[in-house]
């Protein structure tokens, strides 16, 4: 009897598993991503894969076509005030969402913005560039005071706290369009499935199998069909690293990005090409200037001590060993950021380090603090549990010990614990990365060092820095901003507010005959106009 049951089960499996024969369609592109998008709710998206899908399916007022170029998107034209704080957009008329019926009007932009910063909903992407937004969020102002105004069906006006730039308007969570009536049909589940999502880009989501794949097809209602060159884009979740290499070699994947030189070598040997590379993040040690304890804080608040540690790092050796394929950093601003081009020659420290100078700075610091080397406490080096991070810290630990005799202890923890510890200042040094931002780091990374935004995360407060920062963000033109930013960057590097070690590079790899895809200034891959 047992045998029969087993035979039946086997037969069942065999019948259930009829091979789905893939139609060899030349116009499908399969692209590998690390994670499931999780959500496509504009107010919540935060993963690369989600940004990729959004990039292809949802358009904002201005289109970012890479290389810091911006062209009209849903807005046909716009004008800005003298101080660049008030922007007025004129929408294209007669646009609809992907259903081909629902019209896109100025009200949809206002609704999307107000929804993202709705204090009741507590959305993850709430941010407060717009005038009056923070006050509204904290219950001190009203919705009417938020700087967004619908002039008529096709005109909308935004007012900002600080001057804005074209790049500001590529954020879909603040400047995308959402149809209120449609969103409200899915009170809790908006953006969590292909059905509960209605957008307006060149492509639309056809199917989304959670944690497996997302299929995008042409949006027939899009105003410029020539921007969608592919019949289908299929995002395959988890197809990265060695898995991605094997899939590409076996013909199961077309495009993916890689970081390891050996993987890239294997693929280029097999006839694939590196289409472009882009700097994905700057890696380094965040410093808690107040210290995890009072004792370590005494040292971490000393600029000479930090300079010694910074100079003791041989970044070239790091790239040779544990950070293969990355670029050793010699300053804060990454070569891919717009602010770099404005000031390309700055070099804040030698990439190979300077052990002799490091020791001089250490002696100076110890003298200032009135202690001997034996009295220097053991510092904590915190990181995420990934092997690459642990190895990196092992290298840092060894360099500081060998060059300066400074002792450290590595703490590898899970992601939420790490972030929790970081936010509450429960660390001395913490290995982490930051994405390059547009137009420069003032929009993200550097905000945390200002006294106005003081948190235990940085434990840093310095009027000189505040003045330089405020001067930078108040600039009314990009030229002025970059000039001010150069001063700010110099101050950051000379006082070692953070120890930047490397810039990580992603290499986008595809078959040789593929072309015409790019990374936006915001760091999202765009394949909508891909040709092959």
């Amino acid at each position, binding site marked *: 009897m047992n045998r029969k049951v087993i035979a039946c089960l086997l037969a069942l499996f065999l019948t259930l598993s009829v091979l789905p024969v893939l139609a060899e369609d030349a116009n499908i592109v399969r692209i590998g991503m690390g994670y499931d998008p999780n959500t496509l709710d504009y107010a919540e998206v935060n993963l690369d894969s989600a940004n990729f899908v959004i990039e292809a399916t949802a358009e904002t007022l201005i289109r970012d076509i890479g290389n810091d170029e911006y062209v009209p998107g849903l807005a046909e034209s716009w004008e800005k005030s003298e101080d660049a704080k008030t922007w007025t957009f004129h929408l294209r008329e007669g646009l609809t969402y992907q259903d081909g019926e629902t019209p896109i009007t100025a009200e949809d932009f206002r609704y999307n913005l107000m929804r993202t910063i709705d204090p009741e909903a507590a959305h993850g992407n709430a941010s407060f560039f717009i005038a009056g937004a923070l006050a509204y969020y904290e219950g001190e102002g009203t919705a009417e005071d938020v700087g967004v105004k619908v002039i008529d069906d096709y005109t909308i006006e935004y007012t900002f706290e600080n001057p804005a730039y074209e790049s500001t308007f590529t954020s879909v969570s603040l400047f995308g369009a959402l149809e209120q009536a449609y969103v409200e049909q899915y009170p809790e589940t*908006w953006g969590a499935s292909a059905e509960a999502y209605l957008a307006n880009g060149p492509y639309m989501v056809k199917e989304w199998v959670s944690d497996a794949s997302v299929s995008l097809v042409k949006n027939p209602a899009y105003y410029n069909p020539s921007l969608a060159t592919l019949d289908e884009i299929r995002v395959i979740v988890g197809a990265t690293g060695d898995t991605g290499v*094997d899939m590409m070699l076996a013909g199961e994947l077309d495009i993916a990005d890689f970081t390891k030189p050996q993987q890239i070598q294997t693929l280029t040997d097999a006839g694939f090409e590196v289409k472009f590379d882009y700097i994905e993040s700057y890696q380094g040690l965040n410093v808690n200037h107040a210290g995890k304890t009072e004792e370590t804080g005494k040292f971490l608040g000393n600029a000479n001590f930090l300079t010694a540690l910074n100079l003791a790092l041989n970044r070239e050796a790091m790239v040779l060993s544990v950070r293969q394929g990355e670029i050793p950093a010699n300053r804060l601003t990454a070569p891919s950021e717009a602010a770099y081009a404005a000031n390309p020659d700055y070099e804040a420290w030698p990439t190979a380090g300077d052990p002799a100078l490091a020791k001089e700075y250490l002696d100076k610091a110890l003298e200032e603090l009135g202690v001997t080397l034996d009295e220097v406490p053991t510092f904590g080096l915190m990181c995420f549990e990934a092997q690459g991070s642990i190895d990196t810290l092992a290298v840092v630990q060894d360099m500081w010990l060998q060059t300066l005799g400074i002792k450290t202890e590595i703490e590898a923890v899970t992601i*939420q614990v790490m972030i*929790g510890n970081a936010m509450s200042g429960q660390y001395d040094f913490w290995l*982490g990365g930051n994405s390059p931002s547009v137009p420069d780091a003032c929009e993200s990374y550097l905000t945390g060092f200002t006294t106005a935004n003081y948190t235990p995360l940085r434990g840093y407060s310095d009027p000189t820095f505040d003045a330089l920062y405020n001067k930078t963000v108040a600039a009314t033109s990009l030229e002025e901003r970059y000039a001010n930013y150069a001063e700010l960057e110099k101050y950051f590097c000379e006082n070692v507010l953070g120890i930047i070690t490397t810039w990580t590079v992603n290499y986008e790899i595809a078959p040789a005959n593929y072309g015409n895809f790019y990374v936006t200034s915001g760091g999202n891959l765009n394949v909508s106009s891909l040709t092959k």
Partner: protein
Amino acid sequence: MAKYLLQKVLIALATVFVLATATFFMMKLIPGDPFASLTTKIEVQERQREYYGLDKPVVEQYLTYMNNLLHGNLGYSLKKTGRTVVDIIREAFPVSAKLGLFSFIIAELIGYLFGILCAQFRGKWPDYLLMIFAVLGIAMPSMVIGPLLRWLFGVVLRWLPVTGWGSFQQMLMPAFVLGLGTIAGNTRAMRASMLGTMTQDYIMTAQAKGLPKAKVVMRHEFKNSLVPLVANLGPGIAGVMMGSFVVESMFLIPGLGRYFVDSITNLDYPLIMGLTIFYGTFLVTLNLLVDVLYGFLDPRIREAVKGAA
């Protein structure tokens, strides 16, 4: 018998209750905060905690949770915004279960077969050969054997798809990698158990009666050797059906395995609770079935159970 079963079911329910309670409080003891984020504004994080009720006292949160649980509401995932815990399990479990069951059945059968062969050829070359295989099966971690197989059969030979889910071919490699440990474990356990059984009086009696060798082996030795192995069947099946973190991420299978690790490291509280309760309930049910099967296989235990109940 009905009374005995009812008692077992009540105990099973109690188990799930204790499990849910223990997990809830242990989970809250983990340092960290699910909404701690470096990109989200501090004000927003506070608001999120409030929205999900995480600012309330733990006991109050617990009572709310248990109340929702009684109404069959496992809540929404904190990380997969807009998706309910039930949805996530409903989508991912059938995948893991299908792969796991397929792998388990094959692995059990092969393991028993190898074990029987080892015992019958004790000390001869088939025994050594299969034991070396069994040792390798345990020594080679799936994170190593998986990529090797994938590269060999998928890239070099192109016999099987490298990754994915849906076809029978796509199931073969992950099922093998998943079942390798079970095969190895069962080979060893069956060999040991069978060697013990082979010297029993009733086997000698059976042999003396002149029963054919195959009949003695299958009818008497095999059935009796199974008894100690059945004890671990429940957790074995449950474990393998819940998916594997390593195998699923290696072959891109949209199963449940990854959530067990991810939900905890992400502190996705509702998902941790949902998965633990689901796993626990499943396991308790299986153990119940195994208990019944256990009694069925060994008459002496059947009597003891009857006596106890």
